[in-house]
């Protein structure tokens, strides 16, 4: 049923001025008009459906009338109880019930509070740009690698027994994939707990063009851009200990 059928009844709500705050839950219904008269708030232009809604039903201390011929009939009654007061000053409800912001506390000096930086699982899907692999795995692949797969990649050694490979498409190997945001590399499926801080955090850590790699335990380390070299069998053989060892 359309709400604006001609002849449908207009409903009026009245509530004592002291219960003003109870109206907050219908404040966003922007068609309503409100007026103050002799200690009561009057709200007009309510529809039958709005009157039946939980928002209105859950307001206590209210009186609902329907309006017919300038007379107010209580809901369900055929006898009017009073006339509609004349010369009310109607205003849109959001103007009639303005929002007041709390005053700032000028004496607040809690500046020592800090926010812990950590990374948490995230549901966003991102393109992997790097792969962290163990030295033993990489050695097994590199010894027999087709040149075409290595060509778009570069790499850097991490610690004693890990290596990080950058580029796309990455190698078909087991390892931890990473995605990139600014200078940060996060493990795939993880993001900062407060992603909004990312730019500030980056500014503060000041990577100067280097990369900052985050690990799942929220620790991070820096990878110098200059240390990242093109991946090739020769580069790998020059960098690692001879055959048989699992460390780099």
């Amino acid at each position: 049923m359309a709400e604006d059928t001609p002849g449908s009844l207009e409903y009026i709500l009245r509530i004592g001025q002291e219960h003003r705050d109870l109206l907050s839950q219908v404040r966003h219904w922007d068609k309503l008009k409100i007026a103050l008269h002799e200690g009561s708030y009057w709200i007009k232009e309510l529809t039958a459906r709005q009157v039946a809604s939980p928002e209105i039903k859950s307001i206590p201390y209210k009186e609902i009338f329907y309006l017919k011929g300038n007379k107010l009939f209580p809901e369900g009654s055929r006898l009017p109880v009073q006339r509609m007061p004349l010369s009310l000053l109607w205003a849109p409800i959001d103007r009639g019930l303005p929002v007041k912001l709390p005053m700032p506390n000028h004496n607040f000096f809690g500046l020592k509070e800090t926010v812990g930086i950590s990374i948490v699982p995230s549901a966003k899907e991102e393109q992997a740009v790097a792969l962290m692999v163990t030295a033993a795995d990489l050695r097994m692949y590199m010894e027999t690698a087709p040149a075409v797969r290595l060509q778009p990649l570069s790499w850097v050694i991490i610690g004693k027994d890990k290596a990080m490979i950058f580029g796309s498409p990455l190698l078909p190997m087991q390892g931890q994939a990473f995605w990139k945001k600014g200078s940060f590399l996060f493990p795939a499926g993880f993001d900062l707990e407060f992603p909004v801080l990312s730019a500030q955090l980056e500014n503060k850590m000041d990577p100067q063009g280097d990369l900052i790699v985050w690990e799942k335990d929220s620790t991070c380390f820096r990878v110098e851009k200059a240390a990242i070299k093109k991946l090739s069998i020769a580069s790998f053989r020059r960098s690692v200990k001879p055959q048989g060892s699992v460390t780099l």
Partner: protein
Amino acid sequence: MLNPGQSFFLDTIMQLRQTENILLHSRMMEFTAEEEELVIEFLRREYETESLDYPFVPPAFNAPAALWAAKLAYLSSLLILYRENKNEELASILPVYAGEKDASVILSADLCLRFLPAIYLFAKMLDQEDTLAGLLRDILGEWPYAATGAGIEAKEGEAVLPDNDCLRQLYIDRIIAKKDLRSASMQGIREQVQASMGNYSTTFWKELK
């Protein structure tokens, strides 16, 4: 020890390896044993540097094969520019490689032999019916690894995939790098090419079906 200016032969080969240009300094067609030693020494070093990038276990350097290919590149360029010999003599000036062709020979010879397709195409461009061009084509037909991508029909029995792991992977890599569709569509090679590119064959080589 290996300084430019010691020997014209060495200079030409160094120039070829380092800048991929042929620069001929003399019309001498004979080499002294000393000159040959210098070129072998140079090529041995080149092979050591290059084989670091070879997959699997690179085979050892083979000096006679490397020298043969260096002479071939040098003399065929010389014959394009300056020829006093009769056509019948060319085959004896540019002999085919005598000996077993294993992975070590093929890879050592390839240091200079990889430039032969360009020399052949240049000779062919100058004169379609030149005996020299025909001779070079015959030689390249026996060396499919060096001839990859040049569009030269390999001789019977030469086109099969090598047994040596290192050479086989290098051969596949070269087919992909030169996008040699004809070699890549051959039985046996095709699967290896696909395996090398894995899931990304369309990324690396769109034309390959």
